[in-house]
């Protein structure tokens, strides 16, 4: 995929498909170590150890609409092309953490891209998850919490188009300004 934020949206979709109510996303860009690390942690139903071992294969999927699952294999290919890798840790019934790391300066590393659109898309649902996004860039930090936003909105639902549009732009401005 041409943007890391599309992979992130994919990981969020996996978490939501596993019934997660709470999702934490963390991105850390470290110029000194020349590393970008991203992590998506959820409290969904998780995977058994046997299933965890199989998920990197495209032929492991709980989808019923097609026989291959592409999300994790595609992320793995991206990370490996940038001298990195991915890991999945899961506890059945408790949740899952997927992490990916790659060389920040690798020419093959996709840009972060429209992360605001990915988070807006993740929250645009009837029953949105509690989502926390943290982004570190050489020690500077941006943090967003959907729970705080909902408190701010009161009775106005998160799915209101104008709210989602504001959110998309706000997140992009904050992240680009880091």
């Amino acid at each position: 995929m041409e943007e890391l934020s599309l992979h992130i949206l994919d990981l969020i979709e996996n978490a939501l498909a596993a019934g997660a109510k709470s999702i934490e996303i963390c991105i850390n860009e470290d110029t000194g170590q020349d590393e970008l690390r991203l992590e998506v942690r959820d409290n969904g139903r998780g995977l058994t150890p046997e299933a965890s071992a199989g998920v990197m294969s495209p032929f492991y999927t709980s989808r019923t609409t097609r026989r291959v699952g592409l999300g994790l294999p595609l992320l793995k290919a991206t990370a490996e092309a940038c001298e990195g890798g991915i890991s999945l840790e899961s506890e059945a019934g408790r949740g899952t953490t997927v992490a990916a790391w790659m060389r920040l300066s690798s020419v093959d590393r996709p840009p972060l891209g429209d992360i605001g659109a990915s988070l807006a898309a993740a929250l645009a649902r009837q029953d949105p998850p509690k989502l926390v996004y943290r982004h570190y860039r050489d020690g500077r930090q941006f943090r967003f919490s959907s729970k705080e936003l909902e408190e701010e909105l009161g009775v106005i639902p998160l799915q209101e188009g104008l709210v989602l549009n504001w959110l998309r732009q706000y997140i992009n401005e904050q992240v680009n300004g880091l």
Partner: protein
Amino acid sequence: MKSLEELRQIKEKALEEIRLREQEKKVQVIIGMGTCGIAAGAREVMSAILDELGKRRLTNVAVTQTGCIGLCAQEPLVDVIFPGKPKVTYGKIDPFKARQIVAQHIVNGIIIEEWVVNK
């Protein structure tokens, strides 16, 4: 003895009903996503719709997405539902078409028949 917890429950329930009533009055736009949809540009379609709503300052439109619904070949899919009317499903939508859907269908109430897939 009445507890504060009980009051909180009453408040939650009342708010939920207000929310549902508001929901019924809203135009709903639903975008099909899932890895195939995302790869086919569903996120960009959603961004175009949000941007167009923002430019026109259109309130009372709820935008949501669903995971893949198995119609991968027709993705990105966009449903538009007006209160009390049947759902209209558009297929193979790109950001340009998405903006047209806002301008024609959501603003003027005119269905763009050529892009409809559920006729």
